[in-house]
């Protein structure tokens, strides 16, 4: 393999930019391999590979999870309707990072709120409504990470590209970006809506100095056509392609509990490694499946085209008001070769009834989340036997605490720390002091500057 393809193998880029994209993703892999080497104590114990550099046959492994955000669901036990409403409520990106964002213009800073969706299983949706009637016109779903779109806007310069060779550094194609927005979201999208109109900065505490976040003119992934007025790509900070690679890399490290026994089950492992959100469907599933492969002596990577995919939609769940077949209303619209990164559910022209009349398992369609509940997401891992065997496990970095009033809600604490008030040890894991000299090697997924 010479190049890594775009997510969904979409054909937006010219050859030069495609090579730039490939180099960028390859650089992320290399960075993760280096990080993993630091975790395990040497390159010899790394079992995560760059797909461009894997020799030998690869066996594909599909890893699947539910599209509806489990962190939202578990916070509304026994009340799916409330969970669907909550999944549709935008959240503040500043709250996510624990900062306040500011638009900085002529030296003056004005507080702003950047929004993201809490739909954090690598699947986000938007309900388009007819402005005249307010009735639902189309429900769109995406699994495209923000990175590809930032790349479209600003090329490799949108990222920290120290590892990207000079000859692969490319500029963006803002004409293409606008064209895609107009195709996918609507012709009303204006170019200036897609970019920050001022420098954007943030600070953690009121008295702190402002820290730069994005420059004026940089692509704004949280623009209105990707949040309150439309959907182009994922917005949740954890829903990123870089996050997928980071997670797979971190999951390639076998772990052992305080007693030295291997940590293998999904719940314990995602807590032990301190990866992502232990409440999600996706992260524990991905982590465990990758880890299983490594413990059997295989080396792992991600299958090209690397992406997060809308794998299936159970069309038996939807019907018209009198049982009419509406399965044809579901339509993949972006991605090739069965690798769907965007799909929509909408009535065909001339349909006798609209989305507001559709039933999902007998209940009126009111929220995009009802369709997400019958959707499955996937990524494609790949494994190769490079004859290296399984590496020795490393100790846990973190463990999970469960909420006393709802033990299905988990949070991470570092090893050696007690659970906060109102929380108890999940999985019967008591706080243990980490071995002397062992640094906390937990990997934070979504950094503020990533």
């Amino acid at each position, binding site marked *: 393999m010479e190049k890594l393809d775009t997510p969904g193998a979409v054909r937006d880029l010219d050859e030069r930019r495609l090579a730039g994209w490939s180099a960028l993703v390859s650089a992320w892999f290399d960075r993760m391999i280096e990080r993993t080497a630091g975790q395990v104590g040497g390159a010899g114990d790394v079992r995560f590979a760059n797909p461009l550099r894997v020799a030998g046959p690869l066996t594909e*492994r*599909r*890893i*699947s*999870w*539910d599209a509806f955000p489990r962190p939202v669901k*578990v916070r509304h*036990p*026994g*009340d*799916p*309707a409330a969970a669907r409403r909550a999944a549709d409520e935008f959240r503040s990106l500043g709250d996510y990072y624990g900062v306040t964002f500011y638009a900085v213009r002529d030296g003056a800073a004005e507080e702003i709120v950047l929004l993201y969706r809490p739909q954090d299983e690598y699947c986000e949706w938007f309900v388009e409504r007819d402005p005249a009637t307010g009735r639902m016109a189309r429900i769109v779903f995406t699994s495209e990470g923000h990175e590809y779109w930032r790349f479209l806007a600003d090329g490799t310069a949108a990222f920290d590209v120290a590892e990207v060779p000079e000859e692969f550094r490319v500029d963006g194609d803002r004409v293409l970006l606008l064209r895609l927005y107009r195709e996918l979201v609507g012709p009303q999208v204006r170019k200036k809506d897609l970019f920050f109109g001022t420098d954007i900065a943030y600070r953690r505490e009121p008295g702190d100095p402002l820290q730069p976040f994005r420059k004026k003119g940089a692509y704004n992934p949280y623009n209105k056509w990707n949040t309150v007025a439309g959907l182009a790509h994922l917005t949740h900070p954890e829903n990123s392609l870089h996050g997928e690679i980071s997670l797979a890399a971190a999951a390639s490290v076998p772990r052992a509990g305080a007693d030295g026994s291997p940590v*293998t*089950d*999904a*719940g*314990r492992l995602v807590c032990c490694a301190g990866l992502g959100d232990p409440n999600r*469907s996706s992260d*524990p*599933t991905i982590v*465990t*499946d990758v880890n299983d492969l490594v413990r059997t002596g295989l080396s792992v990577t991600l299958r090209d085209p690397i992406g997060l995919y809308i794998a299936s939609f*159970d069309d*038996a*769940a*939807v*019907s018209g008001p009198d*049982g009419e077949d509406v399965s044809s209303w579901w339509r993949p619209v972006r991605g090739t070769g069965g690798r769907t990164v965007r799909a929509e559910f909408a009535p065909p022209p001339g349909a006798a009834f609209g989305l507001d009349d559709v*039933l999902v*398992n*007998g*209940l009126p369609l009111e929220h995009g989340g009802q369709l997400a509940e*019958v959707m499955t997401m996937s990524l494609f891992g790949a494994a190769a036997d490079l004859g290296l065997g399984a590496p020795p496990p490393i100790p846990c970095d973190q463990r*999970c605490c*469960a909420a006393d*009033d*709802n*033990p*299905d809600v*988990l949070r991470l604490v570092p090893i050696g720390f007690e659970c906060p008030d109102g929380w108890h040890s*999940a*999985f*019967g894991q008591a706080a243990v002091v980490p071995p002397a000299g062992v640094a906390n090697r937990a990997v934070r997924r979504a950094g503020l500057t990533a």
Partner: protein
Amino acid sequence: MTEPLLDLDDIQAHVLPGFGHEHQWLLGWRLPGDEPAGAARALLAELAGRITPARRGLADRAARRAVRRGRTARSRLSGRPATAVALSARTLRMLGHDELATIDEAFTAGMARRGYLRDPPPGDWTVGGPGREIDILVMTAGEDLERLAAAVEEIRAAAVRARCEPVHDQQGRRLPGDVEHFGFRDGISQPVLRGVVDADGTPLVERLPMPSMPDHRAYAGPGDVLVWPGQFLFGLPRQSETDPVRSAPARRAPGLARNGSLLVYRKLEQDVPGFRADTGRMAAGLGVDPDRLRAEMVGRWPDGRPLVRTDDATGAELNHFGYDTAVPAIPGGPRGADADPDGARCPLSAHIRKVNPRDQETDKGPPSATLTFAILRRGITYGVAGDGDCGLLFLCYQTDLVSQFELLAQRWAGSPDRPRQGLDNGVDLLIGRVRAGTARRARLLPGEVSTFADYVIPRGGAYLFTPSLSALRVLAA
């Protein structure tokens, strides 16, 4: 953690511990168009004094076991039939209890509208189809068919007096050896409810000394996994998804729902000649013994021995095994058993792996979560194999239809790569349903098989609510 007190005088015996009698009769009525609430109240008032509480159900079960073990004479069995009643969401609405009618959205919508079950069109149903929906279902059971028939006659007469329209009348009978019509022993693995039955803290089910198990679950005895009762009874602590031994707060529900449960009733017709012929064809194609192939579809031999175990398992050993981890020998009890994570001895598509993946991680998360999907099965066979209409009257209890029955029947049984992730192992060939006109396919040990035939055909049924005895009195008033 302290286990809750189970009110054995308030919980219906059909929920706990189940009837277990040889004969059972199911009677269903639709409420009349005029004054449906009055009709419902009239019938419920007549039924209220007949409903069997859990305490009597447990005593009857103990007596039956004593008879079976030769410790007491059959004449000591109480001949009085046991009776239970369950109500549709429509009935609850008619009675002015919207809060109960909307207790679970699948219950509110009704089984006929749950498209993803991929059942035949409701218009083709013989039970609960359009215009024949079951609003009130009575299940009555006993050892003495004559006395049972007399009780059924009294209940029918009560329904006539109440002006309820009969829409269902179905007799069931346990087959010798508790097998279903394909010849396999059924009902071996059931969750065991946590809970105590008196102020002294006597557990509902006796706890045998058990070593720490590698799956981190708690067991009442070998193979008898303990589950918090809120999975099956409203108002009680439910099972934590993340910790196999801890409880979670009860599912939010109105006070009147306490000690009640959601009932799934499905009439599942079994095509016995079709099953034998089709599996015979598959076996011939693969060059294997048809009995072996059928056992792989089920995951057990007809007498209940699990394919996972390589020994001649008997008694508690039938349920003492895991998939991901080997189970240890229990001192003075069953022998240990090796694991079979990838389906080397029992295919991943086997029925018992599809609907109960035990200690194996699933697409829904860690094995602890699997405990929250368990159901209490109360089914009974009907008809005679080879004599036309025969099958299983599938009955099960839970407090969350989507996360329990529907997850097992729709998502796991009907998905080729679930519950075990990443491996396309095919569907559960016994009950898995796929898109009409599509072959059902499964990977068995000697190779892949596929068929367009359905051996188990859903003929309809209903989602119902089985109230507590105290709630029933309120509803009847």
